[in-house]
């Protein structure tokens, strides 16, 4: 392995690296450094959310009960399946399967990502709009804690909106990956773009894993909650 640098270079191997293993590790490290900034980016919203939730819990419970929990849960499942298909796409490249296999899993992942956005728009944000739950633009909710619910909905739309923007970016990345795979850019030695895009995709999944209970399930859904 140490003489790899002196032997024929695999496709995609950059010359500043000693070995392709080192290149892969550098790519992963760089992607994680980016994801750490993303953790803190979303973290700022989560911090604000925690403070406002602790200060105005009754309003947040009332606001949470306006959300469509069934579709929130369904979307969680959609994202988990998409994380599995993404992992299988990377594995298929890593183990040198036919490019058709990798493309199949990538397209599958893309469709699930699109389904997530579709469910969100059609079954959540659209009804929210009609129920007057969109602060500033279409607001006529007047329950007992209306001003606090307004604040909750601001959090809801900012957090799920930022997450949805990340999903759209993810779909763009997947599209590029599908094209690159079709053009034989990856091999069992070189698949870093697939792998680090996978890291991004899984990260977006993790954000939703937290958004779902924190936004949809405040104060429970049991009778009398």
């Amino acid at each position, binding site marked *: *392995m140490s003489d*790899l640098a002196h032997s*024929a*270079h*695999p*496709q995609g191997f950059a010359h500043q690296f000693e070995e*392709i*293993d080192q290149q*892969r*590790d550098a790519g*992963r*490290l760089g992607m*994680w450094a980016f*994801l*750490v900034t993303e*953790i*803190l980016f979303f*973290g*700022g919203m989560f*911090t604000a959310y*925690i*403070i406002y939730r602790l*200060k105005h819990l009754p309003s947040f419970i009332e606001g949470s009960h306006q959300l469509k929990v069934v579709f929130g*849960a369904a979307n969680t499942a959609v994202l988990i*399946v998409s*994380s*599995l298909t993404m*992992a*299988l796409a990377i*594995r298929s490249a*890593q*183990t040198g*399967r036919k*490019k058709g296999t990798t493309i199949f899993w990538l397209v599958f992942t893309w469709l699930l990502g699109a389904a997530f956005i579709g469910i969100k728009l059609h079954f959540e944000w659209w009804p929210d709009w009609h129920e007057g739950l969109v602060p500033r633009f279409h607001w006529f909710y007047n329950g007992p804690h209306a*001003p*606090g619910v*307004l604040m909750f909905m601001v959090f809801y739309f900012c957090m799920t909106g930022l997450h949805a923007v990340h999903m759209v970016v993810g779909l763009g990345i997947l599209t590029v990956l599908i094209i690159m795979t079709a053009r*034989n850019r*990856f*091999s*069992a*030695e070189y698949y870093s773009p697939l*792998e680090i895009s*996978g890291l991004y995709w*899984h990260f977006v*999944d*993790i954000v939703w*894993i*937290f958004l*779902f*209970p*924190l936004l949809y*399930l*405040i*104060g*429970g*859904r*049991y009778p*009398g*909650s």
Partner: protein
Amino acid sequence: MSDHGDNGAHAEHVVPVSTYLGVFIALLVGTALTTGVAYIDLGKWNTPIALVIAFTKMSLVVLFFMHVKYATGLTRVIIIAGFFWLAIMITLSCQDEFTRTWEIVPQGWLGNGSMILPLLSRFF
């Protein structure tokens, strides 16, 4: 796929499909569990249980789907540092917010039609 198999290094850890499927099923069970638990009255325990499930799901995704179980020490340090900084942000922000009393802001400062005005007048 290009044919470079003979020159390539294969030190990479290939996660078995069975591991991926196991993690996947655990994540789905976690989702069902967190949703189901919300329909049962557990008093103050509803939120802690939801958070424990969310953190467990996150750990599974990070360790197996994101391959951190097989990552280098340097990568792990970066990840831990990220979460450590997040903990600092949350802890110190809460510490500040919940131990400080606020001066009343003159409301004209916010202007008419401000979205935040009704909130301020409601709570402060």
